[in-house]
């Protein structure tokens, strides 16, 4: 009797171990590949590093994964374009954890700590004064907290939003465009309001739903599906929770309009155009200031004009030439200040 119970217990532990090991062994192969790839990148980055901002050590703290094809990836990609391989703590959606990470990077003597999340501002306000020798870069925000070792950055997302909206509205030809928003905050609101204005400018209507979460992919996907059930003729959305929504567009053969990062890898030929954040344009200026001994005190804006916002068209989508030239005109108009996008 007793022995059989012991056997059962051992059996269970064995099963647990097998489970872990089985999952683990498949994991190992894939991880090796990934590690190889990362190693390769590192070598490259090191070389580039020497060419540019070689002396600065950079760390990024971000709320979503570095490869989210959205907000966080746009920052990592931008640093890559500057030849910088940062230390990264990603996925810190708990603000207090992010604060701890920001603080420990600063303690480690990192030269530049990028706090890539509006919600980190309250914590940065407390941390930055403790580390006057560290430069903090914070966004998206139009306010540097009045601290001289904090740079702030924000995208004029309404500009590309307007252009996206104009193109979407033109394609829609009287139909409605479904918009999936995350929390009604930050660059998401700017993008969506710009998008609605752009669509309106060509007489199209938009149906806007905010899911209330930056990260809830399931709800964002569900919302996109509900838009499709209601007969929209195009979809757009913003934040890292959009991957499923893009897929809904693909599945239903509807055009998708991207923002933050280029969403092409998600949607093959149905991404018409993406407004891509090129943080490197403003980061380069910030790094130059830091090397000159100015650690903050300025706010930088990404615009179509300074090249921080880039409209990346998908060659695979057959966009009507007339619409494309209207979009180019809109870009020119926005840069010239003739078109209001807010």
């Amino acid at each position, binding site marked *: 009797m007793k022995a059989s119970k012991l056997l059962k217990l051992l059996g269970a532990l064995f*099963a647990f171990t097998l*489970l872990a090991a089985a999952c683990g062994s498949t994991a190992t192969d894939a991880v090796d590949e990934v590690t190889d790839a990362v190693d390769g990148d590192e070598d490259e980055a090191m070389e580039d590093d020497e060419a540019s901002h070689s002396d600065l050590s950079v760390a990024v703290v971000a709320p979503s994964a570095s*490869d989210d094809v959205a907000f966080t990836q746009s920052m990592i990609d931008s640093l890559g374009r500057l030849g910088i391989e940062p230390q990264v703590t990603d996925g810190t959606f708990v603000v207090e954890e992010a604060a701890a990470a920001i603080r420990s990077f600063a303690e480690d003597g990192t030269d530049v700590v990028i706090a890539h999340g509006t919600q980190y501002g309250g914590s940065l306000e407390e941390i930055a004064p403790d580390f006057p020798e560290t430069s903090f870069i914070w966004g998206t925000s139009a306010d540097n907290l009045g601290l001289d070792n904090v740079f702030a950055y924000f995208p004029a997302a309404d500009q590309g939003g307007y252009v996206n909206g104009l193109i979407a509205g033109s394609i829609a030809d009287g139909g409605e465009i479904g918009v999936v928003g995350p929390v009604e905050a930050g660059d998401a609101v700017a993008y969506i309001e710009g998008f609605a204005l752009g669509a309106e400018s060509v007489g199209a209507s938009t149906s806007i*739903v905010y899911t*209330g979460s930056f990260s809830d992919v*399931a709800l964002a996907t*569900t919302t996109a599906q509900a838009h499709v*059930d209601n007969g929209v003729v195009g979809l757009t959305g913003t934040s890292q929770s959009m991957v*499923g929504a893009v897929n809904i567009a*693909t599945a239903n053969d509807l055009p998708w309009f991207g923002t933050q990062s280029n969403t092409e890898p998600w949607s093959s030929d149905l991404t018409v155009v993406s407004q891509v954040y090129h943080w490197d344009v403003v980061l380069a200026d910030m790094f130059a200031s830091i090397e000159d001994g100015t650690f903050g005190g300025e706010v930088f804006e990404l615009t179509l004009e300074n090249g921080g916002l880039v409209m990346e068209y998908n060659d695979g989508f057959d966009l009507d030439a007339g619409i494309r030239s209207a979009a180019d005109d809109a870009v020119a108009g926005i840069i010239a200040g003739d078109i209001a996008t807010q």
Partner: protein
Amino acid sequence: MSEFFTVSVIFATLSTSIRFAVPYLFAALGETVGQRSGVLNLGVDGIMLLGGFGAYYAVLQTDSHILGLLVGIAIGLLMGFVYAFVTVFLHAKQGISGIGIFLFGLGFSDLLFQELVGTPLPIRPLPRLDQLPVVGGLFEPLVDVAVIGPLLFDHDLLTFMAFLLVPAISWLLLKTTFGMNVRAVGENPQAADSLGVSVERTRFISILIGSTLAGVAGATLSLQLAIFQQNLTNGIGFIAVALVYFGAWRPRYVMAGALLYGIVTATRIRWQSLGIIPQGASDVAAMAPAIVTILALVLLASRVRGPAALTKPFSRH
């Protein structure tokens, strides 16, 4: 408000509701079987997450939805073995060991996702009935039937399976010897034992059925959404457990509960997109199903009695 009360909008919303209800339905039906045998499994959400990831990953690698579903089933079954062993043989307290399964599923699915996938790549969405290979053409006329067509037929196969499972589980519980044993060990294990029914074996199998369906529920969720992410379920598994109480351990009422959740979610999105309710009110509206569930539990608790031996481990001595 008047924009909402048009036939086409209401039917479109209902069609969406039906699809949303499916993961709840699979998970809750499975949990019904387990609870009827006297075992509460609070780990449904964790099993759904593991099954959901497994199915997603299989489709990502092989592009086969059938294989994805099978992986979901296999993971559900495996977790069922773990949970059954822990509760039936080691007599672990059910509410808490379920939380252990939940936390393990939550963490481990996230770990695997980050290590094996990383970038959330979409997979090929589930085909609707009329998009199926070979037989799809047969269903096209049905889907095209005005109003009713999209409501009833513009769905994927898993949706039909979920709703067909409702009478199937009823039949299993009420008309088969196994179902009789399940109900007996859930009501009075001592009596069942004295009649020669193996309480351990019956509960073990019931847990396996429940857990497998939780795996299917997770697979359905990730296949329908064609994506996976950390904590994809966002508590669906916990709601599914509540739906079993809500449905008074009867499959058809459980189904009604699942549909209620689907309808509330779909309506909330629809009302927001029509501008009927602002964002703030939408947060308040999101509380509604939880509050309704609590009220239903209050009303039902005094009228409907659950399996008498629910959460009580059985030992002969």
